[in-house]
């Protein structure tokens, strides 16, 4: 891609630079910054409240706050722009109620702005921050907090001086995820009429038909992302701390009634706005528009979705396992490289990735067919780029980061001594992996598999471009209907995507409880 970008036409670039590009870049940075800030403001307090205080219903909120993850961002974006638009039901009712006639009569925030986009995206993405930060809080060595108490800090000071700084690596990791998702997400910002670098990528590619320039812009985007990733790793480099005693038994802060009220409002607002409200809107549409024939059609698209999600999740998990074990058991300097490379895919916008897949597999397919021709065989057709293979491959590339992260975290919990113990018992390395590491990693494997499965169910642009004939998935169907402003008819499919998204969250929660 970088090579291709070198051929980018200078003329187009200088035109873009002179006109819209500076604003696109400003918008991109502003959006990423705002989303990062907002997810921070949503996720960290929520994590602290749930894990460190006696908040009412903390046990339920613990997992309720993860639910927004199940909502595809483009869906929520569509629902919210529709809801809060000038012509949307909220402003309509307000106008009807107060007898306002025109936008000049009252003030209402404009949802289609960078701010609006940031809020809605943050509402969907904050669970990343919440989840990782909460885990960090819960796994902090309780003796550190105790030490701080004995050294004269009350609970509040201990939180700010010890718990929060120690959670910083987790917060940084989750923010990186959030920023990557934000930068790569075109479908979502589109509804907000916010033009970012991603818009520019599509403009140059589809409008100016200049793929080279589009690649160059995409590279700029990747540079941003690279910068974020490196900055994050730098920030973490100086910190190494492994907890020995999970902090689940610590004393929780007792909230006063006012605090209790504010905290509950805050947490429930997040659950409501990030999950319940969109779900209810969808369900209303389902009830209003659904009919039986649609349901039958959904079954086959649903099957397609599940199939590709299944392959992708399985393959991504296996690769992640392989890489993680390789890194663990192969103590060379270069061992970290494959992991870092695979984690990069997450930051690549789906369509850009799809283009890369075509660029990669197209030539291979040609080779296969040329070979077949030379051997006087029937040409097998586009075995790789024209089948589900390409989609699955793209998904694996895109979601490897998730699988890697989860599996690595799991493997980190296995004591190093267990790597050596089997050898001392006369068991070779490979059987040892099957008999020791894999059973111990069972829950991480399950979580990784489910997370990729759900992301694959939601993922859109890559499928749109790579799918074979007559191949529809839930997300492509929903997206088509959305792009035609007819989400009503796709609501059932959307609800199915959300329901599938709930599966891993429920399972994750179960697992935590049983531990």
């Amino acid at each position: 891609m970088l090579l291709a970008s070198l051929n980018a036409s200078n003329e187009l670039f200088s035109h873009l630079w002179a006109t819209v590009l500076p604003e696109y870049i400003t918008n991109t940075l502003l959006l990423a910054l705002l989303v990062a800030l907002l997810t921070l403001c949503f996720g960290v307090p929520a994590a602290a409240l749930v894990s460190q205080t006696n908040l009412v219903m903390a046990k339920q909120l613990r997992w309720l706050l993860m639910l927004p993850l199940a909502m595809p961002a483009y869906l929520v974006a569509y629902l919210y722009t529709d809801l809060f638009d000038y012509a949307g039901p909220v402003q309509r009712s307000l106008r009807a109620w107060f007898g306002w006639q025109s936008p000049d009569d009252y003030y209402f925030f404009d949802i289609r702005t960078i701010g609006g986009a940031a809020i809605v995206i943050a509402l969907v993405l904050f669970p990343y921050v919440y989840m990782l930060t909460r885990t960090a809080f819960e796994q902090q060595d309780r003796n550190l907090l105790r030490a701080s108490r004995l050294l004269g800090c009350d609970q509040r000071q201990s939180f700010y001086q010890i718990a929060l700084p120690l959670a910083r690596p987790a917060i940084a990791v989750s923010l990186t995820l959030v920023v990557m998702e934000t930068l790569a997400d075109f479908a979502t910002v589109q509804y907000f009429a916010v033009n970012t670098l991603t818009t520019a990528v599509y403009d140059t590619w589809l409008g100016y038909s200049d793929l080279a320039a589009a690649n160059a812009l995409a590279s700029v985007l990747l540079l941003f992302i690279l910068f974020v990733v490196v900055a994050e790793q730098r920030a973490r480099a100086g910190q190494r701390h492994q907890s020995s005693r999970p902090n689940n038994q610590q004393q929780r802060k007792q909230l006063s009634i006012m605090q209790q009220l504010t905290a509950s409002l805050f947490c429930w607002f997040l659950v409501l706005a990030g999950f319940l409200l969109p779900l209810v809107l969808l369900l209303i549409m389902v009830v209003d528009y659904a009919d039986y024939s649609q349901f039958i059609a959904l079954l086959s698209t649903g099957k397609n979705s599940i199939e590709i999600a299944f392959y992708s999740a399985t393959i991504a998990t296996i690769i992640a396992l392989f890489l993680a074990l390789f890194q663990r058991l192969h103590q060379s300097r270069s061992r970290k490289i494959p992991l870092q490379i695979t984690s990069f895919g997450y930051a690549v916008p789906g369509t850009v990735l799809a283009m890369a897949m075509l660029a990669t597999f197209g030539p291979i397919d040609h080779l296969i067919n040329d070979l077949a021709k030379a051997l006087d065989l029937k040409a097998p057709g586009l075995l790789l780029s024209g089948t589900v293979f390409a989609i699955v491959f793209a998904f694996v590339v895109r979601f490897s980061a998730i699988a890697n992260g989860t599996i690595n975290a799991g493997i980190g919990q296995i004591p190093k001594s267990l790597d050596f113990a089997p050898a001392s018992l006369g068991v070779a390395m490979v059987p040892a992996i099957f008999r020791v590491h894999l059973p111990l990693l069972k829950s991480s494997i399950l979580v990784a598999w489910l997370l990729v499965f759900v992301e694959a169910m939601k993922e859109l642009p890559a499928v749109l471009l790579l799918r074979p004939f007559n191949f529809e998935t839930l997300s492509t169907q929903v997206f088509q209907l959305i792009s035609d402003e007819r989400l009503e008819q796709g609501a059932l499919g959307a609800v199915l995507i959300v329901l599938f998204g709930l599966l891993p969250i429920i399972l994750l929660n179960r697992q935590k409880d049983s531990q």
Partner: protein
Amino acid sequence: MTPLIKIKNLAVELQQKVILSQVNLSLAKGEILGLVGPSGCGKTTLLNTLAGFIDQNAGTITINTDAKAINISVDNMLPAEQRNIGMIFQDYALFPHLSVSDNIRFGLKKLAKTVQEKRCQELLNLLELADFAHRYPHQLSGGQQQRVAIARALAPQPSLLLLDEPFSNIDARLRHELMLEIRQLLKRLNMTAIFVTHNKDEVFTFADKIAVMDSGKVLQVGTPAEVCQQPNSWQVADFLQLGSWLPVALLSNGPAPSITSLLGNLEQQLINVGNVSLLDDSRHLQVLVQANAMSLSPTTSNNVIVEHISVTEQGYHYLLRSIIQDSPLAFRQLSFNSRELFALGTELAIKITAEHLLLYQAANETRNAE
């Protein structure tokens, strides 16, 4: 003189389980108390309760400092940060994101900057950490980390210092030296301290006073010598491994009861420390026999077989079992020291030479002499 800390009838329940009950202890300023006992006996819970990490269910803790008396009861729970107690954790719990000097200064926030700086410098010098002031905990060795933990705990000048298994992470060879060093330091500062350990050697080296705990109760408190010479219960003697157990049977009761064992009738004066009721329950009686309080008896017939031999600085240490094994008085692990070397399986005749014997009832019928 009023004790610095006085614990009265302290009780703790966690999840409806009694962890501590009827704990009474007091400690004068400058004294070092060692809490010992098998794991799960409640010694760490006691430490955590004193520190304020666990709420007590009954009883009071009184801490008398020069300035005032702090009284902690169920009605008046003082949060940990207001107790003026310092603690050194088993894994040191150093703040990984702060440098050595920031760790030490952590508890000094309320003081003026110059005072903070001065005290931090003093402690760095005292604990020979001056070269590491700007390092982070993960860049230090275990021993250095422990020094930082000590410096950090001492910095706010607590009235009481708690140490949780302070030497368990230290190399065995360095441990003794370090214990003496820290003990001297605490003595120099006239610091009152309570430390927890499951290692009896540590407690004898480090403590002025020891308290033996079992199942949430304090069994015995006293100087190491007192406890060693007159353990007040089978558990205390057993935990501290003060000798090995010889099963005995009562021959006659009365003011001067007589007993017998597989080593013959024992003529020594019996001291019934544990106030064993000899009237109605004379089963599982055992006497404590020290390895040096036995000798070979050329006059009697053989009564033991050599089971195990180990070499010590003073000769050989044997574990002996009784030749007769189908008796209720049979034993398998009687310790015996001798300068002579016997082969495994050799039959010997052994007699007890001690002037008096401590009589106990075994806590657990399957447990035999150790």
